[in-house]
């Protein structure tokens, strides 16, 4: 396996220009959608089958009662332990040699299991093709020596692309710098490969708790349940099986 590629999104540098969103649409030839009113400048409310990059505009009350922006360019996390990939019954969702997660559109059968399995609500169902779609990490570009379109377009280097280990070192240093500058809540989300989901290959630097950005504090791999749930089911099966055998074996009784 080649060195793992990653994207590092530093929200402290995001200016909300949405160049990433537009570049993503252009490169991936994603059609336009009806805008939706979300109460802020954010459009759309969430990832769709036609929006793989999404700048979140989060309004937060600051200490003086004023309003503060949190701008965050969100994307598929390409989890090291990916719920969508594990859920997929068809093998359409696979891991590339670069560590990213991709959906093979020819094999996807449109069952939507991945849509409900994703801990971040990234995967969306495309009604037109009847298949699931999400960010491909610009699979065609990264296999030809180009970075993803969003990272290329970002004017402030809020989105950076590179080898995961390099980016992680950079990200850790950036958190230290921000903390020295007074951003005491600065933290990395998904950088730790020993942490949730084995680390995210698109990880983030946040200026506040993950929930402020609408991210789960403790994302879990849904398939971790399969083993225990199955054991409990086997216990239930034993009870039902023994019960059925006893019911038909029982002799005597009032009916005889």
């Amino acid at each position, binding site marked *: 396996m080649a060195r793992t590629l990653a994207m590092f999104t530093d929200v402290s540098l995001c200016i909300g220009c949405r160049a990433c969103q537009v570049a993503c649409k252009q490169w991936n030839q994603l059609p336009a959608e009806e805008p939706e009113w*979300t109460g802020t400048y954010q459009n759309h409310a*969430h990832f769709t089958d036609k929006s793989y990059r999404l700048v979140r505009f989060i309004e937060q009350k600051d200490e003086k009662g004023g309003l503060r922006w949190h701008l965050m360019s969100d994307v598929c996390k390409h989890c090291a332990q990916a*719920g969508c*990939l*594990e*859920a*997929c*019954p*068809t*093998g*359409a969702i*696979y*891991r*590339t040699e670069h560590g990213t997660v991709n959906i093979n559109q020819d*094999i*996807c*059968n*449109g*069952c*939507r*299991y991945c*849509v*409900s*399995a*994703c801990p*971040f*609500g*990234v995967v969306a*169902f495309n009604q037109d093709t*009847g298949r699931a779609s999400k960010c491909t990490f610009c699979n065609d570009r990264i296999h030809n020596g180009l970075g993803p379109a969003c990272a290329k377009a970002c004017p402030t280097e809020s989105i950076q692309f590179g080898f995961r280990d390099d980016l992680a070192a950079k990200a850790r240093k950036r958190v230290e710098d921000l903390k020295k500058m007074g951003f005491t809540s600065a933290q990395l989300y998904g950088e730790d490969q020993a942490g949730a989901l084995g680390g995210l290959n698109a990880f983030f630097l946040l200026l506040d708790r993950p929930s402020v950005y*609408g*991210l*789960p*504090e403790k994302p*879990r791999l*849904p*398939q971790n*349940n*399969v083993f*225990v*749930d*199955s054991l*409990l*089911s*086997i216990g*239930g*099966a034993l*009870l*039902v*099986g023994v*019960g*059925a*055998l*006893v*019911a*038909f*074996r*029982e002799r005597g009784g*009032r*009916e005889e």
Partner: protein
Amino acid sequence: MPLLKSADWPLLIDVYFFLGGLAAGAFLIATAAQLVGRERDRDVVRAGYYLALLAIIPAPLILIVDLGVPSRFLHMLGSFKPDTGIGASAFTLGPFHFKPFSPMNVGAWGLVGLSVCAFLAALSVFLEDTRRARDLSALRVTVGVIGGFFAFFFAAYPGVLLGATSRPLFQNARFLGVLFLVVGATSGAAAIALILSLKGQEARRALGSLRRLIVPALLLQTVALVLFIVAVATSGAEGASRALAVLLSGQYSLLFWVGAVGVGLLIPLALEIRAQRVSAGRMAISAILILVGGFLVKYAITSAGQVVL
């Protein structure tokens, strides 16, 4: 703004879960009757295996309708150019793949296995009924035992499948597999009882055997339901209590309390638990209530968990 998306599986999938559970339950009960039952239970074997086949036939059709293109169902089982890196412990055999941690993939294989066994079992009964063969019980025992494992699996897997999503009501549930399994057993038993009750008091001995199964199974179903609710309520996970509220006091609460709990559990239990004698008429009523409740408990839970909050 809600973070998590929902598969939004339509009503058809709830019908699939219900019919699949019923087929598996009927198959299991027929096998138990075949293994240890006596002559009076012979009708349970016949009705059970016929029902299992009839209820499993729509299952793949429903999945095909939901997927939109017939060939897409086959993608569940294999593809001609499988990728490497399709999941933990996944392996391929020629064009086929098997993903132990994807309940939907394993479920598709289970559907194939149970369908084959249900067909063979029903065929053996049919050949005997039409006097084309004299005694096929050896075949039926073999198919029944092998198919029994498939049936246990097939009744439980939708619950485990839901548990392996990020929907808070399902992810923290733990006992959905058990619940679906037991509901499958009670639905199967009720469906057999309903058919036998058509013969009136003549079938009361077989109905007596079924009642000895149905009453404890309904109690087990109640326990599984309570454990499910307790597990979600005490999980403390993000979104779990809000998701549970949709089922217990929100949009689906009426269906749940009146349909799943009242009609499906309390009334049939009240009817059967203290009755002195088996009555075909009363059994038919209980069976209908259990079937309605069995569908509603799966429908209410599956739908409530898929509401995007």
